[in-house]
């Protein structure tokens, strides 16, 4: 299905209205949630690691550590999991219900390819939306870490030290690293969710099964891909 969608890429411009709709759907549904989640992830990492580092006199590395972990790992992975739950489930449910209620059969009888009509716009939209959301998530996560570092009495690393270390350790390549990962995760979520939708059988229970499979499979694939992508990107960065 992924290759069929790639072959249909030249038709993307024709489906621009549907892509814009999907982009709005994903962004509108997820931006606030992404920011809240990211803020608290950065905060929790600071809360867990800050006191330990400060006790050992390593408080000056906190900004760099949180900066790297948020942009290379936590933001892309956690946001991908969030999007798999919110958007992947919605995609598989919508396509699955279209399949069960013969809407996809109706498209086929009109000589309309369901891959071009349903999968292509969703895949393009999620592949654009998730990296964009991660671009928001990274600075918000840093801010969460900085806030907890500054205002938690057991950490007490001020903004200047936190962001000073972060600037020293994190470079643009690290941010791109996270954005690239999120792009790959987005493709995985899109393909898995649309595929589960298209193979749905058996009424409302079948739709429920497809949604569950889409979310669980997406999360498992995200975590497996994360390991291999991390190894690959570490090799490339060397």
């Amino acid at each position, binding site marked *: 299905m992924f290759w069929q969608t790639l072959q249909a890429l030249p038709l993307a411009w024709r489906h621009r209205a549907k892509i814009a709709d999907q982009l709005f759907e994903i962004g509108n549904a997820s931006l606030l949630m992404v920011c809240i989640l990211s803020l608290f992830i950065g905060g929790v990492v600071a809360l867990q690691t800050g006191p330990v580092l400060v006790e050992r006199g390593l408080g000056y590395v906190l900004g760099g550590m949180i900066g790297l972990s948020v942009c290379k790992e936590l933001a892309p992975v956690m946001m991908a999991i969030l999007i798999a739950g919110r958007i992947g489930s919605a995609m598989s449910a919508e396509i699955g219900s279209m399949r069960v209620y013969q809407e996809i059969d109706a*498209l086929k009888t009109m000589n309309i390819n369901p891959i071009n009509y349903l999968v292509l716009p969703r895949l393009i939209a999620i592949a654009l939306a998730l990296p964009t959301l991660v671009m928001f998530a990274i600075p918000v996560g840093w801010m969460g870490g900085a806030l907890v570092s500054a205002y938690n009495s057991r950490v007490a690393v001020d903004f200047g030290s936190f962001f000073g270390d972060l600037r020293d350790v994190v470079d643009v390549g690290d941010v791109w690293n996270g954005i690239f990962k999120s792009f790959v995760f987005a493709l995985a979520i899109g393909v898995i969710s649309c595929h589960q939708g298209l193979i749905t059988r058996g009424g409302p229970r079948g739709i429920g099964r497809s949604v569950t499979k889409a979310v669980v499979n997406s999360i498992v694939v995200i975590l497996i891909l994360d390991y291999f992508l991390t190894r690959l990107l570490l090799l490339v960065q060397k």
Partner: protein
Amino acid sequence: MNGSETQNVSLEVRGLRRSFNGVVVLDDIQFRVEPGEVFVIMGPSGSGKTVLLKHLIGLEQPDSGEILVQGKPIDTPGLRDQYRMAMVFQSSALLTSLTVGENVGLYLSEHQLKPPREIAFIVADKLKTVGLAGLENRLPNELSGGMQKRVAIARALVVEPHLIMFDEPTAELDPIMAVAIGEEILKLKNQLHATSIVVTHDRDLAFGIADRVAMIMNGKILFVGTPDELKENPDPKIQNFVYAELLIRRYNQPHKETSHK
């Protein structure tokens, strides 16, 4: 895409066989639908009618046998561009996320056959044809079952089909609405001269619109002929289906006599 270009086509089924998980659902199906005729496939629930129709429109692939449209196999590349086909589903199968107007104009907009203003004009015209003028902006779930069915017919009309198939077009409709749908099918025959294949177990509809009828039971075609020939066929299975109300009366009779006593 002009009404005057529409020409009717023949459809022939030869030795069609299909099984699911070892259960034979269609067994050696053979018949020919002549150009421009209304051909009704009748049979009880679960006899294989809908599966057969899905094969005829190309949604399912047979295990063996062939389906010929105007003498050419249905999977011939470009055949669907040469001979346009449409299907009206039992559930109407309207896209619930689109408005009525977008549903009806979907074929034209997706294939970019007309500019948007012309599509809007055609959509309004087809909706008027099925008695639903002015409902372009409504969503399918705001309409009754009968209205949804007529929207589905309007969507099929937009294709200007050479061959149109109806799956249980009067299922879940009241008798008055069923008559209206029957009239729409006959209008299609008279105005577009399209070849129509109707799958139904509604005997009134079948005898009202059919040029010829095929009777299918347990995946096999038992009979092909005119409605009058079907009514006179001595096969008890066919008689039981065609005159089912007599069976009910026969069962009811002793009960009535007992209760009168």
